[in-house]
């Protein structure tokens, strides 16, 4: 927003504009993932009637001086209020723009952080410790009456099958890992179960380790906070090294934690953040060293993503160019044994302003074309996983003459996914279950089931016997099983 000199109010109330600017900034910096997005901590509170302050040059913020819930009576009043998930606050902004989907996932405010938005952190903590009826009342309300229905409405509109919950309030040292495990994780799991019923997998980014004082770094507390993260991510070993001082903490402590998963052959995902203040203050050498260290420590035996978040508004562009160049250079597969031997060239780029003048219209045209290839629902997820196979030489050679198609028919969702392989190219499209006659689409292989069953089945959570039972009861329909195995081979490339 700051880089593009965008008016703050427009940036946060017009998601198509937000998304467009994000696309420009992302291309300027040569980023691999989505940029920007809305203020995830505010939308639900605002829709419930909470007051937001819209600054001229800043992100909106909840007015904590006027909390919606001060006591149990306020909670009871709020529970009686009928929430219009189509029209309240900025809900329509989210529903009317695919810009609200970040990487095909809906973004929401996690239960605890939403409860903070409604009560303020001090009052909520007091309720947690001294007024359990109020605390648990608020947390149940946000899960059952606000978030689950809101996520469902987004799924019905956009077809997204995943949701990511922002939960910065639930981090160390705001709370201890034990407090998070006892008071927050049960509600994350509750939300996960509710959303699974309508086919959406939600994960809450809870438990980030953000200790400011390096001398207070404690590997046991870190490991306990990782347990909170894993429990909040549906039991998946997906770790976020988000807002902490990761350029100063010992990374070996992370490897010590992930060892148990790696020994079992489980893939561990690490999303490692470059500390926002390091990104701003630099110097470039320190930023590059941080990236190198992440890659050297994790990239060979973890799935590593390096991300830039909470980037301060006046961060020099050169710092971000350096971080991206370092990531792409040192992170090129296969990862070199000795990163010190690799030469890093940081591109000297024009200012965003100058670059924008030359490139804006071309990029907007590209984005318009890409939008036509929008893949809703499962198709989007599959494309993220499989799209790169088109650059795989082995695939291109082996399937040069192939012609086959497969359908993943998610019977309780708006969109199914159609995969075609033709002349060495894999194409993934969505199929609108409401408009297109899914049953009449001729394919070589297909799977038909609910989204929830699909994720359990592909996530290895159903035994072979279990699968057989599902097939016998008609809950899982597989056609062309042998051809489906061919698809599995392609996915493994």
């Amino acid at each position: 927003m700051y880089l593009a000199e965008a008016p703050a109010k427009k940036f946060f109330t017009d998601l198509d504009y937000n998304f467009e600017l994000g696309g420009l900034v992302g291309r300027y910096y040569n980023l691999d993932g989505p940029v920007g997005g809305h203020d995830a901590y505010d939308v639900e509170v605002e829709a419930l009637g909470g007051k937001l302050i819209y600054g001229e040059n800043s992100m909106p913020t909840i007015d904590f001086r006027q909390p919606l819930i001060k006591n149990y009576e306020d909670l009871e009043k709020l529970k009686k209020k009928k929430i219009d998930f189509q029209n309240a606050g900025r809900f329509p902004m989210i529903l009317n723009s695919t810009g609200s989907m970040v990487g095909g996932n809906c973004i929401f405010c996690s239960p605890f952080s939403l409860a903070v938005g409604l009560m303020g952190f001090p009052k909520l903590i007091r309720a947690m410790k001294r007024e359990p009826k109020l605390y648990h009342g608020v947390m149940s309300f946000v899960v059952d009456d606000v978030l689950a229905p809101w996520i469902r409405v987004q799924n019905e509109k956009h077809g997204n099958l995943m949701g990511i919950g922002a939960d910065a309030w639930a981090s160390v040292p705001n709370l201890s890992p034990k407090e998070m495990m006892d008071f927050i994780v049960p509600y994350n799991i509750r939300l996960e179960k509710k959303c699974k019923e309508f086919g959406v997998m939600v994960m809450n980014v809870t438990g980030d380790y953000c200790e400011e004082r390096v001398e207070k770094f404690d590997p046991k507390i870190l490991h306990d906070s990782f347990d909170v993260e894993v429990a909040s991510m549906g039991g998946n070993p997906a770790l976020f090294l988000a807002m902490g001082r990761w350029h100063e903490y010992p990374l070996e402590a992370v490897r010590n934690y992930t060892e148990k998963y790696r020994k079992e052959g489980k893939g561990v995902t690490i999303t490692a953040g470059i500390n926002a203040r390091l990104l701003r203050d630099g110097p470039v050498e320190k930023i590059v060293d941080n990236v190198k260290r992440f890659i050297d420590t994790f990239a060979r035996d973890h799935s590593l993503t390096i991300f830039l978040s909470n980037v301060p508004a006046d961060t020099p562009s050169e710092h971000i160019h350096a971080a991206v160049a370092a990531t792409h250079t040192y992170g090129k597969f296969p990862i070199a044994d000795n990163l010190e031997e690799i030469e890093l060239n940081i591109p000297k780029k024009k200012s965003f302003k100058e670059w924008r003048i030359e490139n804006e219209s071309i990029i907007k045209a590209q984005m318009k074309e890409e939008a036509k290839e929008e893949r809703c629902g499962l198709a989007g997820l599959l494309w993220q996983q499989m799209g790169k196979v088109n650059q795989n030489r082995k695939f291109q050679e082996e399937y040069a003459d192939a012609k086959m198609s497969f359908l993943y028919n998610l019977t309780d969702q708006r969109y199914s996914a159609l995969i075609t392989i033709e002349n060495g190219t894999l194409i993934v499209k969505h199929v609108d279950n409401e408009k297109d006659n899914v049953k009449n689409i001729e394919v070589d292989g297909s799977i038909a089931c609910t989204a929830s069953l699909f994720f359990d089945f592909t996530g290895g959570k159903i035994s072979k016997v279990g699968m057989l039972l599902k097939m016998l009861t008609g809950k899982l329909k597989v056609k062309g099983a042998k051809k489906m195995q061919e698809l599995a081979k392609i996915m493994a490339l």
Partner: protein
Amino acid sequence: MDKNEILTDLKKAVLEGDDDLSQELANKALDQGLEPMTIVNQSIIPGIQEAGELWKRNEYFHTDIILCAEAFRLAMEIIEPKLSAGELGASGKVIIGTVAGDMHNLGKIMVNATLRGGGFEVIDLGEDVSQDTFIEKIKEINPDILGLGCYMTTTMLEMREIIKRLEKEGLRNNLKVMIGGVPCTQEFAEEINADVWGKDAFDAVEKAKMILGVK
């Protein structure tokens, strides 16, 4: 209840963040004829100081400190009116506020308590405080330290503008400026010509004493 017992229990109530009990015991202590300054120095302040030690040892987290700060505040609310003028605030006078456009106050609540625990008189201007309000209050109160807080990277830039305004109004040389909040760093403090950066609530009181030369 024995007077010493009351003092011990009051310290414990503050330390454990039991705000109801801290108020009750503060009243009891006065009823028992304990000197207000004794109550402050032997119970209330030691309670929050011990919380600081537990914080440094990773035994206390913000949840504990915030409850402790509230118990401290409520106990002090009862005792302060009984103090003679000048008995508190011997360390110095601090004006504190969250800058304009920012509503966050968690850090400020804790800093408020730790500064008072460190013997500072604290005037809290609240949140979303405009430059004009800061300037007006500085002229009115003549503090030793101006404490600026923020939580967002967009609002932290306002701190630079406030300091420029202090310079323009000829106020800068008469006070020290401390900044704090999640996006702030020592480098940023130096860049905007602030005197010091408080890493957390306990660091803030140590730095406040340091810049004023208070032991």
